[in-house]
């Protein structure tokens, strides 16, 4: 005679069969993933040497080059390039946020209605699909090898995500103030100014600050195709395995990203 708890245990569905099949499939898929023709396993025997070379380079951070003093021109120093990267990210985010506003209205169901909002959403999906680097690749032909290309690439790419998040913020807005304003006889502009803007501005700024975090990271790599910032120096150093320069750049990127993250999360905490 089984006790009640034993009976309950027997009734438990046998999930382990499904789990086993799932795990086996995962392991097989991973093994297949590692069997590419370009994988050279013998490279692993040299990892010790690679680590030593890398460490030697990384420990020789070139302060003159970092600050752009001494034999270096200030504008080729890492400090200047880091600020340029920051500038690209900041202006790019600003541009993206401004451009995203009309798109977000277009894809917000509360403002333009269900059917038109689908068109707006589709446009935003299409914008988002284009990786920044591909955008920059095209834009660099029209705007030349300089930071402006980076700003435009980041700005255009940001529209996709910002537009979607903005439209969500607009859709989540409380509509009762609008009715109240209607009741006291406010006109359209007054309704936007006193009913909509005070509600959405904190959300919108918080979203834009979050995007700034992301854009600072992507601005560091856009330089590899000539869109300004640290990327150009970075790819050059990487192609020559110049670890001391790469190490300097990595330190600069880490400091910049951590600072921007800290400021942005502090401000976002204040906003919400």
């Amino acid at each position, binding site marked *: 005679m089984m006790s009640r708890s034993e009976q309950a245990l027997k009734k438990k569905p046998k999930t382990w069969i499904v789990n086993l099949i799932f795990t086996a499939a*995962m392991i097989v*898929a*991973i093994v*297949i*993933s*590692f069997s*590419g023709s*370009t*994988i*050279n396993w013998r*490279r*692993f025997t040299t*990892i010790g040497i*690679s680590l030593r070379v*890398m460490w030697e380079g990384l420990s020789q951070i070139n302060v003159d080059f970092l600050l752009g003093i001494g034999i270096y021109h200030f504008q080729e120093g890492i400090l*200047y390039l880091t*600020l*340029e990267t*920051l*500038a*690209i990210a*900041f*202006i790019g985010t*600003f541009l993206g946020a401004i451009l995203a506003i009309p798109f977000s209205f277009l894809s917000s169901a509360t403002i333009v209605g269900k059917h038109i909002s689908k068109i707006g959403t589709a446009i935003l*999906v299409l914008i988002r*699909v284009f*990786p920044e*680097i*591909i955008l920059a*690749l*095209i*834009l660099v*032909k*029209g*705007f*030349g*090898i*300089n*930071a*402006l290309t980076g*700003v435009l690439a980041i700005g255009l790419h940001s529209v996709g995500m910002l537009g979607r998040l903005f439209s969500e913020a607009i859709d989540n807005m409380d509509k009762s103030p609008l009715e109240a304003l209607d009741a006291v006889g406010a006109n359209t502009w007054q309704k936007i100014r006193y009913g909509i803007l005070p509600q959405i*501005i904190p959300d919108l*700024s918080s979203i834009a600050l979050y995007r700034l975090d992301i854009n600072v*990271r*992507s601005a*560091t*790599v856009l330089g*590899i*195709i000539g869109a*300004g910032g640290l990327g150009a120096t*970075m790819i050059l150093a*990487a192609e020559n*395995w110049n670890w001391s320069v*790469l190490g300097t750049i*990595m330190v600069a*990127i*880490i400091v910049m*990203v*951590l600072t921007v*993250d800290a400021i942005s999360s502090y401000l976002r905490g204040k906003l919400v």
Partner: protein
Amino acid sequence: MAKFTITNGKTVTKPFNKIWIILAIVIVLLIIFWQFIKFNPEFIALDQLGIILKKMFTPKGTRTWGDYFKYMLRLKEPLLDTLQMSFAGSILGSALAIPVAILAARNIFKKKFIYVPIRFLMNLIRTIPAMILALISVFFVGIGVLSGILAITLFTFGIMAKMLYEVIETVDMNPFEALESTGANKTQAFRYAVMPQILPVFVSYLIYVFEMNVRASAILGYVGAGGIGTVIKDNILYNYDRVGASVIVMLVLILVVQFLSNFLRSKLQ
């Protein structure tokens, strides 16, 4: 300050709107940062934009549209490489992230000396852009898919560990404490009290990270980490039509993965 007299005789002052200060700061920052955006107006050649788009999306020279589409079929292998890299990297990175996330969560091991240094290390890893991770991987294991897998593993690890510990911190801890009180150790309590709560979120994040990695692999290929990005880099100097074809294939891949990911994640919720 504008002052208003209400009908009952009281005067009220309109409070100063802080938005003007914020707006002023943003404008000042924009002006300062604009000094860094040096560009020569002579370099701007907007007609080139049309030319490059035409070069990218029409067959080059004597090639026909048939060649253009045939080339897309030849991209099967790099396409599979991209998927393979993203898949293996996402799975491995997420697997590595689980133990670290548990250590970093404030509510499992309530010791400051464990979670503070781990969080700091994770933040450090997350600041390094995927491309630099790829550069380092290429240095170690050479050009190819393996360096892509390594880079994506590290990249996934950074994001996943952070997202996971945030999820772990929001779980309901009552079952955990109940199990501990019946004599279960931390592992058992985690397995039966926390795991069921975080598993759906974990799978949803895994799909999301995979989607992100497919996107990121465009950039990774550019520094030699395999996949469709490599094809774009190889052809960028002479064969713009091939670049265009690869871009189309990549965009379709991203769209499909994004669609599937949204679909699967909505099913999970």
